[in-house]
């Protein structure tokens, strides 16, 4: 039939159409890209720092927001009364240029610098801090970090609604530029707290212009509305796309600020972020995907930043459920975990094996190394607990939240317990919110957990073991330990005595082992070598004002 011949005519038509399409696409592609300068190169030319920031910021109201991505933006927008040195994290003058501390360590007087201004040119006053802290502590605000201000006298009763009058809280305006703060007890790390976002001052007039004082839904944080105190101010914010900040012309120290703008991109997917970094779309990523570690280490180690970070990754036991009410079982399980192998094989050596709950080095504290890997001893302890060679050990589950590296680690630990102790632990992964709920309700056997310090002080880790701490979540309740944390440590007379008491507390909790430390975190992100001055530090706190770009 001649249909086939005719049909082949159609084919040539179609073929031509396809060919045309392919050519158009390729030409388009080549024209659009080719040798154009990358966004990073453009950023270096224009002084724009492109930062991949993992998640869309929930809010940039310092009394609403809670997460790390939000904090990374807020440290650019705000400055505390006292700031942190960008390398050592020592308290340095911020909005206040000096302060006096009373003999008993309970009263602080801050002098706000004369040239401290809001990003619209208004002067920053002591009243601003007074008003802001009354907002931060207002029970109606629902501020999840209000507790950062609890060392201030009567702050806690006010924040929990037991006290109505903010005048009774230990914050007083002495004069326009002088603020006095009275503490409940002297605590050595109070100055550090003032650089936390819960303690930032917010701009009263603009907040009241767009809503009530404690309105979480207010539009005052929008570009054009928002007025801030830091080295940068909000320029633009497109949800799930980019948040831009620009240099604040009224910032007291604007001469030391080199960057013109910082752009924050919310990219939840680490692999996508890494690809963006590789093709020059961002200067910095939030985190490197595990699989890429070896590649960067071999090919461009200068781009991979892996520095100590104040955080501990641990497994916690539910002490209210057998067999974990038995201390020997807990000890046996801990002894059977080979932390060096985990670090090397599972985590590609980008963490530190943990031998204590507190990361070493916090405020000069070197915790005792009480954790070891000893399968023989583990086996013996398990037998003593009534499970020789794992016989009769009940079915238990190891809970973790859905995430590739948690999964890998859990699989590895599961095998170690199986190999050294003969017990078979099931894995259970839950989506984040479900996992949180399970832990809060003590509805688990063993759970993965992580804790990142808010301040550089061991107390921030050791108080996890307090029976009254909501973050304990393990049903660990040891009155002796509580007494140590709540009474003995605060009453320490000298820094050395305090450190010694920490070591004692650490010893107690590492013997009881409600928490089994696995590794100490390290920062693990990619940074373009053209970025200078972003110093690594223990809190992964970014001093953007010291950052310069260029080759």
């Amino acid at each position, binding site marked *: 039939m001649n249909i086939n011949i005719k049909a082949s005519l159609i084919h040539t038509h179609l073929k031509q159409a396809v060919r045309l399409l392919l050519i158009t696409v390729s030409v388009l592609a080549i024209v659009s890209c080719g040798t154009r300068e990358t966004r990073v190169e453009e950023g270096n030319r224009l002084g724009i720092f492109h930062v991949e920031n993992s998640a869309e910021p929930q809010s940039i109201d310092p009394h609403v927001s809670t997460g790390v991505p939000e904090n990374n933006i807020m440290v650019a927008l705000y400055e505390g009364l006292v700031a942190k040195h960008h390398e050592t994290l020592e308290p340095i003058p911020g909005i206040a240029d000096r302060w006096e501390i009373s003999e008993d360590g309970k009263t602080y007087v801050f002098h706000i610098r004369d040239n401290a201004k809001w990003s619209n040119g208004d002067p920053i006053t002591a009243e601003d801090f007074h008003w802001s802290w009354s907002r931060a502590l207002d029970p109606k605000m629902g501020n999840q970090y209000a507790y950062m201000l609890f060392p201030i006298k009567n702050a806690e009763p006010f924040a929990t609604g037991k006290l109505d009058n903010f005048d009774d809280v230990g914050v007083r305006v002495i004069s326009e530029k002088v603020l006095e703060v009275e503490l409940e007890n002297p605590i050595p790390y109070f100055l550090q707290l003032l650089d936390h976002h819960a303690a930032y001052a917010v701009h009263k007039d603009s907040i009241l212009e767009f809503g009530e004082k404690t309105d979480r839904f207010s539009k005052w944080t929008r570009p054009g509305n928002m007025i801030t105190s830091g080295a940068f101010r909000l320029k633009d914010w497109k949800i799930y796309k980019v948040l831009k900040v620009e240099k604040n012309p009224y910032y007291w120290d604007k001469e030391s600020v080199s960057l013109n703008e910082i752009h924050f991109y919310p990219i939840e997917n680490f692999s996508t972020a890494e690809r963006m970094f590789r093709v020059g779309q961002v200067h910095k990523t939030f985190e490197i995907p595990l699989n890429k570690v070896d590649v960067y280490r071999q090919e461009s180690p200068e781009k991979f930043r892996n520095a100590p970070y104040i955080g501990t990754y641990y497994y916690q036991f539910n002490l209210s459920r057998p067999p974990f009410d038995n201390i020997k079982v807990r000890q046996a399980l801990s002894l059977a975990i080979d932390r060096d192998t985990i670090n090397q094989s599972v985590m590609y050596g980008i963490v530190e094996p943990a031998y204590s709950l507190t990361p070493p080095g916090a405020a000069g504290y070197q915790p005792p190394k009480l954790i070891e890997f000893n399968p023989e001893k583990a086996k013996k302890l398990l037998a003593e607990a009534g499970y020789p060679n794992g016989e009769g050990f009940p079915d238990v589950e190891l809970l973790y939240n*859905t995430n*590739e590296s948690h*999964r890998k680690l859990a699989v590895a630990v599961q*095998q170690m317990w199986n190999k050294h102790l003969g017990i078979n632990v099931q894995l259970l992964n839950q989506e984040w919110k479900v996992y949180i709920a399970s832990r809060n309700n003590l509805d688990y056997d063993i759970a993965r957990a992580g804790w990142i310090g808010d301040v550089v002080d061991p107390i921030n880790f050791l108080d996890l073991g307090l029976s009254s701490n909501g973050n304990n979540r393990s049903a660990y309740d040891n009155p002796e330990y509580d007494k140590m944390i709540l009474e003995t440590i605060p009453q320490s007379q000298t820094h050395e005595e305090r450190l010694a008491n920490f070591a004692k507390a650490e010893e107690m909790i590492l013997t009881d082992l409600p928490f089994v430390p696995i590794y100490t975190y390290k920062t693990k992100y990619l940074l373009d070598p053209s970025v200078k001055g972003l110093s690594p530090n223990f809190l992964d706190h970014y001093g953007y004002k010291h950052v310069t770009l260029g080759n």
Partner: protein
Amino acid sequence: MTASNSTLNQTSTMNDIEQFESGNSLWHDAWVRLRKNKLALVSLFVLIFIGVICLLTPWIAPYGYEQQDLALGASAPSAAHWFGTDTLGRDLLTRVMYGGRVSLAVGLIATAVALTIGVTWGAIAGYTGGRVDAIMMRLVDIIYALPFMIFIVLLMVVFGRSLLLLFLAIGAVEWLTMARIVRGQVQTIRQLEFVEAAISIGLSKAAIIRRHIIPNALGPVIVYTTLTIPNVMLLEAFLSFLGLGIQPPESSWGVLIANGVESMEEYPWLLIFPGLALSIVLFSLNFLGDGLRDALDVRASKD
């Protein structure tokens, strides 16, 4: 419509299920037509081959399923490990074989769930007609209006994850189209002579549906079933991508691929083998489905 009518005319002469099963010109013709479609035929054999391997996995897998070698880590394909090993040093061939069992099981069981609900629902609605039909099909419309993906995500989040739930959730979504197809078929068949004859001799409704309607609506159902399995397997993969799929250390092709994508540049074999396995099965099922559609001369109403 015209095409399916011709099918029905051929089948309308039979009024007995035994006769139907014992083979007749329709099914014989279909087989002859299917054999002409080489791709569909090859697909059928590929599926049988993979199915047999997955069935025999526990006896023929080269390594233990959970056997790790942390010191070895991810290694490229070799004589000892044909598909290489993953980052925990586990043999990938073994994992692909076991993963296939889960993926195929999800595909088959969820489809079976969809099939059962869909066929029953559609047959009852189509056969009863009137108000019952209207209400039943309105329900189908309601579920159609739910954004499927999110519906499943919500289900998985709310009720936690279990394999059983996964089957049910996916089946619960996939039965809708089946119900519509069957209803349409049944409505048409119901008006044909032999059914009316059956009614007149006093057969019960259930018996009529079981013995006459269902067998005659079989063509479209078979085709649609073949095409539902790959959809379900993709859905399972999607859930794995979200981290809502199968629990480790269990695995599925979807899980293996989702993990493999993350390291596709460093350890390409972790993506290539599970990816190939899934794609080959999906291609085969789709080609077989299309081949059957041509062979049985079925026009799907909505697909």
